[in-house]
Structure formats: C-alpha cells, structure tokens
C-alpha cells in the first residue's frame, strides 16, 4: 500500500472500522512510514482536542423564549384539545373568508345593476 491509499484509510483505522486484511496492510505500512504515523498521531490528538472542547450553554432566556413563544402556546393549545380544535378554527376562518368574498361580489354586482338601471331610466326619460 502506498501513502496516498493509507491516508484515505487512517481515519477508519483509528476508529477500528477496517476489515482485518486492510487493517493488517495499514499496520505494516505504518511500521515503515514516519509521515503516515505522524498523521495518525495528529488525528488522535485532534480527536482529543475536539472531545475536550468546552461545552457552550444557551442563554438563560432561551427557556422563556421557547415556552412563551406563540408557536409553543399554539402547539400546547392544540395538544390539550386533542389536535382538533385549531383545525376547526382554521376551517371556520377559511369559510368566513369565502363568505365575505361572496358578499363583496354580490354588493358589487348589485351596485352595477343599480347604476345600469338608473342610466337606462335617464335615457328613457
């Protein structure tokens, strides 16, 4: 195995994810290649650095932001009412929107008819 091939396998070698023959080939190569051994040692070191990276906590206000957000309160409302009511509310709102549009159309149409009727009446006079 050459260095290029070994370097592609070093990560899996470190995690013990290679087949037995692959592992054996990499081990043999490492015994005679200081450069590849160096990279493996670096990977090991970087894994340790990453695992020791201090954990960062969210701001203390995040809890309040989540549990008083309109999205959360809406969800809680829906769940407490068995997921049904918000959908019904949405349907009613939707139906009301349609009714309002029909009403506007009727008013518009009636006004148009009335204007035409008035104009026709003026002409006949």
């Amino acid at each position, binding site marked *: 195995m050459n260095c290029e091939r070994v370097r592609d396998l070093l*990560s899996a070698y470190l995690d013990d994810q290679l087949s037995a023959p692959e592992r054996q080939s990499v081990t043999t190569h490492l015994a005679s290649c200081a450069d590849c051994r160096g990279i493996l040692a670096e990977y090991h070191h970087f894994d340790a650095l990453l695992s020791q990276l201090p954990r960062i906590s969210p*701001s203390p206000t995040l809890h309040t932001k*989540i549990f008083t957000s309109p999205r959360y309160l809406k969800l809680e409302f829906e*769940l407490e009412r068995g997921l049904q009511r918000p959908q019904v509310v949405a349907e009613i709102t939707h139906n009301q929107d349609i009714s309002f549009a029909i009403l506007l159309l009727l008013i518009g149409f009636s006004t148009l008819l009335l204007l035409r009727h008035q104009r026709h009446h003026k002409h006949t006079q």
Partner: protein
Amino acid sequence: MVRVETKENSWSFEQIYDEYKTPIYNYVYHLVGDREQADDLTQDTFLKAFRALPKMDANLKLSAWLYRIATNTAYDALRRRKLIAWLPWQDLDHEPADVDSADPQEIYGTTEIVRAALRRMPQQYRAALLLYTQEGFSYSEIAHTLNIAESGVKMYLSRARQSFREQYRSLEQGGGAK
C-alpha cells in the same frame, strides 16, 4: 403539562429541553459559529421537535432524531447565509466568528483555533466530526442523523479529519481568514 412517550422514557417538553438544551445548542453553535444565531436555531429545533413528537413512533431514538432536526435547521440557515453572501452589500471577508462574546483568554488559545478550524470545514464533514468526537455517536447514529449510508460515514469522517488537520495547521501557522 404535555407528555410524550418514547420507548426509552416518558417525557414532558420541559424535560426534553432541560436534558438536551446544552448539547443541541453546543452542536448548533459549532455548526453555524454564531451565538445569537445558535440561540434562534436551537429554539427552532425544539419547537419543530415538539410539534412533530406526538406523531412519532414510540420506538423513536430521541437523541439522534433531535440532532437530525438540529442539523437540518442549521444547514438551512447556512444555505440562507451563503445566498445572502452573494448580495452586493455583504462584506465578503466577514467571518462568522463569535469573537465578541467569547472569553478573551480563549481568542488566541487552542480552543479558539479548534473552533476556527471547525468553522472553515465543509459543513457536512464538520457535522460528522462533531457528532463523533463531541457527542460520542456511533457510525450508525451518525448515518441516521445525517441521513446518509453507514458506509458514507467512513468517508465523511476521513475527509473531515483531513480537512480539520489542514485548517488547524494553517491557523496555527498564522493563516488569516480564508
């Protein structure tokens, strides 16, 4: 109080938040590199999870599932940020570092170099490396979280380590912003 059942436990939303707030926030922070944005994305992650959780199967592996939502939420934000970076008024040299809110002692220390190297890596490799080293996920859990085949995890981690090494060494030798 709303409770949900998984195979492992019976949870209230508050318990889920208390258990996972720091690991999820920490993970999201390292994916996006900005504390304020990490706060918003963590909030979004939990709210998405709370909404979907009552409909999920009881066999759900809560931890991997939460990280999956967090990953997708962070990726969406990074995609938006990339789009915004194309706009003419955006400062292209801006690095999404968190220098203002970081501990000043850490700015030039190893911890900050590690964080900076992470920020410079391709996002999918960064996620895999964080899940493996910080969260202690197995290859199978990483595959599930990132929605890739288990064989792909081997490749992701290999490229992640190569990329991290490259970035870390460049920063250590005084390499400035990319």
